[in-house]
C-alpha cells in the first residue's frame, strides 16, 4: 500500500515536470493558430487551425529577411570560431609551453564577463570599422562569446584523446599541421558538430549586441525582430503575430536540440558553460 502510494506520488511528480516544461510552448502554438478576434478568449485546446498569423508575419514584418540574417550571422560565427579554435585548442591541449595556463585562464575569464561591459568599446570599434547596422559587425562581436567556448571545449576534448595516436605520428615524422589535419580532425567530427551546434544556438539567441548594433528592421536578427514587433498602436500588441514568429524560430532549435540531446548533454558537461 505504502509502496503504491509512493509510485503514485512519483508519477504525479513526473507528470508535473512534463506539464510545466511543455505547456508554455504548447500554449504559444495554439495561440499562434487563432485569428485575432479569438485571441482574447482563453482556450486550452486548439479550436480551429488558422494560419493567418503565419502569413502576416512574413508579409507585414518581413520576417524572412530577419531569419536569413540570423542564419547568416550564426553560421558564419560558427565557422569562424571553429576554424580559429581547432588549431588553438591543439596548441593548448597538447603542446607544453610557457604561458599556456595564463592563456587558458584568460579565455575562461573572457567567457565569464558580462557582454554589457564591452558594449561601449565594441560600439566604438564597430563604428570605426564602418560595420554599424551591418551583419559583419554582429558576426565579429559574437566571436567574443563563441570563441572562448569553442576553444575551451575543444581543448578539453583533445586532452582526453589517447596520446599514443600522436606519438606514432611524430615518430613517423609528421609535423603539427599534419597531426591536426590527418590524425585529430577525423576523431573530432562529433565534438565539432556538438560545439558548433551550441555556438550556433548561442549566436541565434543573442539579443544585446543585435539590439544595439543594428538600426533598421531589414538588418535585424530574429530575437530583436520578435522583441520589437509592434501593432497599430502602442497598447495593442499583435500577440498572434508574435506567437507565430516565436513558434517559427523555436521549432527548428527544439528539433535540433532533441535530435542531438545526448551529444549536447555531454558537450555541456565538458564545457560547463551557459546555455
Amino acid at each position, binding site marked *: 500500500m505504502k509502496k503504491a502510494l509512493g509510485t503514485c506520488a512519483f508519477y504525479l511528480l513526473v507528470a508535473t515536470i512534463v506539464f510545466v516544461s511543455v505547456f*508554455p510552448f504548447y500554449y504559444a502554438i495554439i*495561440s499562434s493558430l487563432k485569428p485575432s478576434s479569438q485571441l482574447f478568449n482563453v482556450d486550452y485546446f486548439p479550436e480551429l487551425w488558422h494560419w493567418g498569423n503565419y502569413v502576416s508575419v512574413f508579409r507585414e514584418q518581413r520576417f524572412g529577411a530577419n531569419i536569413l540574417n540570423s542564419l547568416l550571422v550564426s553560421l558564419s560565427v560558427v565557422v569562424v570560431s571553429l576554424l580559429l579554435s581547432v588549431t588553438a585548442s591543439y596548441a593548448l591541449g597538447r603542446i607544453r609551453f610557457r604561458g599556456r595556463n595564463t592563456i587558458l585562464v584568460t579565455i575562461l575569464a573572457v567567457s565569464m564577463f558580462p557582454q554589457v561591459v564591452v558594449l561601449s568599446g565594441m560600439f566604438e570599434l564597430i563604428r570605426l570599422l564602418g560595420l554599424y547596422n551591418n551583419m559583419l559587425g554582429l558576426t565579429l562581436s559574437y566571436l567574443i562569446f563563441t570563441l572562448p567556448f569553442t576553444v575551451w571545449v575543444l581543448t578539453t576534448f583533445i586532452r582526453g584523446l589517447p596520446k599514443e595516436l600522436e606519438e606514432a605520428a611524430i615518430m613517423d615524422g609528421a609535423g*603539427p599541421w599534419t597531426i591536426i589535419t590527418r590524425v585529430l580532425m577525423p576523431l573530432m567530427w562529433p565534438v565539432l558538430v556538438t560545439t558548433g551546434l551550441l555556438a550556433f544556438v548561442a549566436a541565434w539567441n543573442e539579443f544585446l549586441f543585435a539590439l544595439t548594433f543594428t538600426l533598421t528592421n531589414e538588418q535585424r536578427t530574429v530575437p530583436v525582430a520578435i522583441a520589437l514587433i509592434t501593432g497599430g498602436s502602442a497598447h495593442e500588441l499583435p500577440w498572434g503575430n508574435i*506567437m507565430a514568429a516565436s513558434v517559427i524560430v523555436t521549432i527548428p532549435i527544439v528539433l535540433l536540440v532533441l535530435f542531438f540531446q545526448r551529444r549536447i548533454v555531454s558537450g555541456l558537461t565538458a564545457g560547463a*558553460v551557459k546555455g
Partner: protein
Amino acid sequence: MVTTTAKSPIADIRSSEKQENPSSRSSALTRDRVRSAWLFLAPMLVVLALIAGWPLARTIWFGFTDANLADLSGAQFIGFANYLSVDAGHWSGLLTDPDWWRAVWNTACFAVVSVSLEVVLGTIVALVLNAQFPGRAWVRAAVLIPWAIPTIVSAKMWSWMLNDQFGILNHALMALGVIDHPLAWTADPDLSMMAVVMVDVWKTTPFMALLILAGLQMLPSDCYEAAKVDGIHPVRVFFRVTLPLVRPAIMVAVLFRVLDALRVFDLIYVLTSNSKDTMSMSIYARQQLLDFQEVGYGSAASTLLFLVVAFCTVLYIVAGRVRFDDEH
C-alpha cells in the same frame, strides 16, 4: 582542466630516442613544437585581443571621461567624476545614484533567489531523471524544451501568458479560486520581480538538472547498495551520501549560473522593459549608454559591473574551493 599533469608526449619520445641522438634532436623538436603552438594560437589571440581586450580597455577608459554617444572622439578625461564627485557640498556620480543602487539590489536579489530555486528544483528533476521508469527518455526530452527555447521567445511567451487581461495564468488561477481578481504580473511593482524570477527558473532549471544529472550518473553504486543493505532511509541516504558526492558538480553549475544571472539583460528587458522595479545592472548601463547617450557614465556603470562579477568569481572559487581541473 586549467592545470594539467598530463605528461608531454615529447618526454616519452625523448626517452626512447636517447641511444641514437642524445637530446639535440629532441630539443629541436620541442622548440619546433613550441613555435608552432604560438603560430596556431596567434589568429585566435589576435581576434580575442581585438574584440575583447580592446573594447574592455576602451570601456574602462570611457568610464573616466565625459564621452557622449554623438561624439565619442571628443571625450575629455574627468577622473573619477562619473563614479563620485563633490561640487560645492553636493555629491554626485554613480555611487550616489539611488537608481544604480536599486539596479544592484535587483540584480543581487534576482541572482540569489533564481539560482537557489534552480538548484533545488534542478536537483529534484535530476533525481527523477536518474530513476529508472518507462518513458524516461521522453521525460528527459520534454525537460530540455524550455532550455532550447530562445530567451526572447520565452520572455514573449510568458508575457502573453502573464497578460493582465487575457493571460492564461490569471484565468487558471481565478478558475481555481486562488485569486479573485486578475493580477498585473509584469506591471505591479510587487509582482514583477517575482514574474521575472519565475520565467528564469522555468527556462534555466533544465540546464541545472542536466549538469546535476551528469554528476549523479558518475556516482559509484556500491555506496547505495551498502546503504540499502543497512536499511537506511532514502532521504537520509540523499543528504548523507548523494549530496556530498554531487556537491562539486553543483558548485561549478552554480558558479556559471550566478555569473549568468549577474549579467541578466534580455529576459528583463523584454518582460518588463525599462521599469525601475526590475532593472538590472546591465539594463541600467545600457540605458545610460544608448537611451541617454551618456557613454562616460554608462561605461563607469559597466566597469563597476565588471568588478562585481570578477569579485564574486574570485570569492566563490576561494570560499567554495571549486576546482576546475578534473584530475583527482
